[in-house]
């Protein structure tokens, strides 16, 4: 509701505006104070900052890939696909099983050579194929079962259904795969810990191969998606549906089909992100998708939800903030999740449309 601008209208401070100002001021003072103390103390050298920045960029790239899934679905359906993180988890587990199977499969006559390390590239491709396929199917099924029957229902209804689907998938995974954490077996080519070494201030900064791989693959996926959305016929249909479903349908676009395909694409990306997450971080369990999912949602909001470059930018930004933030503010690293959520709250308070976001039309709100 816009207020009618009367000439010489008295400026009144609503409690909301006061709250905004107070919170903003507190935040700025806090950040300035902490930054000042940390920098004066000089607790970390440039090499350490470099390490933080690199790990932030890598995680940020994965966040960006997941965030695109949220943004795509939000752009079309105006709903938060709460179960997106779980779709990622399914993908991570699929890749894990492929690696496990190939690790035990022996090649040729020698008993020691297993498929995983003899053909590492093929193994990795197979793992990604499996993860992406399973997640794609998962995304399509999720839409068909939990969201399609709710088309046209009040907004809360599909959101609650999404929360239900998320809980369901998490617990199904726990019951199937057990509550324990599992180590992702990488091929030796991508063994964790090894990497390129940079010398900064005479101290080594290792950029792991898994990190490089994850970062490059994420960028490729993002470019691929961007081309798909901007340059292809399907992308045009998708943008049309996002703009206006009725008009798109009148132009001969199969709206249900496009929605289903959107879920498929966001599932594919989530699956790839899941396998990357496993390869890079090395540990997966049934809950692995939840926090990255929330973070990626934060990233999507940060960049402007519904906006694909925004999601990419938001993901990178969030990854870096999360890696550097606790050190820069001199707070405990246990609190990095708090930092991410605080940023979400701050963004929503001060710029709900996000960094690159457009002002949403009334209908989309």
């Amino acid at each position, binding site marked *: *509701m816009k207020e009618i601008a009367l000439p010489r209208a008295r400026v009144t401070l*609503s*409690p*909301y505006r006061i*709250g*905004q100002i107070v*919170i903003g001021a507190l935040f700025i003072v806090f950040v300035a104070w902490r930054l000042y103390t940390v920098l004066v103390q000089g607790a970390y050298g440039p090499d350490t900052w470099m390490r933080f920045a690199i790990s932030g960029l890598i995680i940020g790239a994965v966040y960006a890939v997941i965030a695109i899934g949220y943004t795509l679905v939000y752009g079309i359906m105006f*709903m*938060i696909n709460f179960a997106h993180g779980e779709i990622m988890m399914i993908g991570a587990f699929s890749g894990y*099983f492929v690696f*496990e199977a190939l690790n035990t499969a022996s090649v040729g006559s020698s008993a020691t050579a297993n498929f995983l390390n003899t053909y590492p590239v093929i193994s990795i491709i197979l793992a990604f194929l499996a993860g992406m396929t399973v997640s794609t199917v998962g995304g399509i099924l999720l839409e068909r*079962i*939990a969201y399609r*029957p*709710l088309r046209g*229902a009040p*907004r*809360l*209804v*599909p*959101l*609650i*259904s999404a*929360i*239900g*689907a*998320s*809980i*369901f*998938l*998490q*617990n*199904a995974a726990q*019951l*199937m*795969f*057990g509550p324990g954490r599992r180590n992702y077996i990488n091929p030796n080519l991508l063994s964790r810990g090894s990497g390129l070494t940079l010398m900064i201030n005479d101290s080594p900064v290792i950029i792991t191969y898994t990190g490089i791989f994850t970062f490059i693959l994420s960028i490729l996926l993002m470019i691929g998606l961007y081309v798909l959305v901007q340059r292809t016929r399907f992308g045009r249909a998708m943008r049309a549906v996002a703009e206006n479903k009725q008009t798109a349908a009148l132009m001969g676009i199969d709206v249900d089909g496009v929605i289903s395909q959107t879920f498929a694409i966001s599932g594919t990306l989530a699956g790839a992100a899941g396998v990357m997450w496993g390869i890079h971080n090395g540990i997966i369990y049934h809950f692995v998708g939840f926090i990255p999912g*929330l973070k990626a*949602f*934060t990233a999507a*909001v940060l960049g402007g939800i519904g906006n694909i470059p925004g999601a990419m930018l938001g993901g990178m930004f969030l990854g870096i903030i999360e890696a550097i933030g606790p050190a820069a503010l001199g*707070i*405990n690293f*246990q*609190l990095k*999740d*708090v930092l991410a*959520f*605080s940023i*979400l*709250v701050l963004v*929503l*308070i001060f710029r*709900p449309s996000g960094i690159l976001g457009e002002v949403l039309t009334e209908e989309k*709100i």
Partner: protein
Amino acid sequence: MNTSIRKGLRSGLIFSTGIVFLVLIGFTTTISELIAEGINLDTTAGSTGNVYALSLFLGLLGLWAGARGAEKSEPDTWSKATVGGLAAGVALGIVMAVFTWLLGTLSAAGVDLRKQLVQFSKANIDFILFQTSVVNGALMHMALFTLSGLAGGLIARGLRGSWRESLRVWWASQRDRISQTSAVEYLRTSTIARYIYYGLLLVLLFLIPSRLGQYWNFTLGTVGIYVLMGLGLNIVVGLAGLLDLGYVAFFAVGAYTIGLLTSPTMHGLTWNFWLVLPVGILMAAFTGILLGIPVLRLRGDYLAIVTLGFGEIIRILVKSDMLAPFAGGPQGVRDIAGPSIFGVPFSDERDFMYLIILGILLVIFVTNRLQNSRIGRAWIAMREDETVAQAVGINTYRAKLLAFAIGAAFAGLGGILFASRNQYTGPEDHNLLVSINVLSLVIVGGMGSIPGVIAGAFVLKGLPEILRQISDYRILAFGALLVVMMILRPEGIWPSSRRRLEFHDVPEEAPPEPVHPRSADLPETAGLDATSDVPVSTDVAGEM
């Protein structure tokens, strides 16, 4: 004929996916034990009681699959139903036979499936093969599902006979006859009768805890605390339409307030319980306002995420090392004081049960008064359409803040009772699952309906206590229930009349809903006519 086969195959494939999933999560084993126990089969080692129970369970699923395969189509012939049911059964049988054969063969070849899929121990795989050889087990699956699918199809066709319609008509007439009897009418509408009900209920509420042992009082006490929180969240979600996924934050504020103020080990403070009670409730309400001021302008789904984030922030903060000297860190706070009256401490679960019941009655009273007040109507208007609500002069921001604060206060009360009863509170008491439990019970029970919330709490928190064996599957079932409820019955199991009308148009034969609470006081002619579709308000009645 082709369509029947296709329909049957479809049903069979959907059900086989479901059953494979149930086997994967180990539910078949658990439910078989439960069934065997329930119908008194011999379940000692080496006996076949569990296997009979398993075939019973799978057979019932087969019946269902067959019935779905033989769904109604025009013309509705027996042969079509037979074909549909049979197709469903055969499809289901083939999938299950292949699946179990695969499992059995792998297991016999010495592959340890359990390493990857925890449910597939040797014993469980033998069990799903009916404790026979691999081939026999697979064939038994084939036979069982084919037969049960066929039977399901036939039964479904049989149940569709014309007698069903006449039964429904008979039941409707009986119901009308009973409800129109003057005695029933009197019992339903008279004020005196209502007070008698309330009195009886109070006596029951007083008697029940004294009859129950420690265990049941404890369990019901937990259910009661969830009722309390559910009623609070009901105001936020059900009435005001604000989806709050971080409700546990206010619960934590209440629990930690009493913890820090009464536990001598933390800060050496030993406040009295009755003094902490208002302080904690106010603290929770204050936190609600504090959180509400910045976030309540946000759209519904953003609000959900922000509140979820906030709930997590509170948990991570109290768990962190940074706040450990203040809030006890991961170990939590011990030795929290319990209440006492005239120097007599509450030592028993039963005493707490009374306290919780008292709390619930208070909260029900407050909710009821709020719901039918000006602010309650403002909330409902806001839930339905915020712009319109603003246009008719409701300060939506203030109404939202008030809803948030009141909801938070109830959660704070719940937290105080919970921490005080357990004499302990720690970060893991306040994880996301609590928020989700409370939200589920509000939604499953019926948003905006007080009896619905109570029913939801008993179904979601009470039933799993009774069915201890399946408690592993409780949260899974929550998730599935949320989705299924949203699809089939978004208004909940016991909806408020307003919401029921909102989601479904009034069916023709439905008993008339009082549009206005006082419509019973109006003259005879103003009573609602079941056959008229015009909603009769008091104004219309005046013209008649």
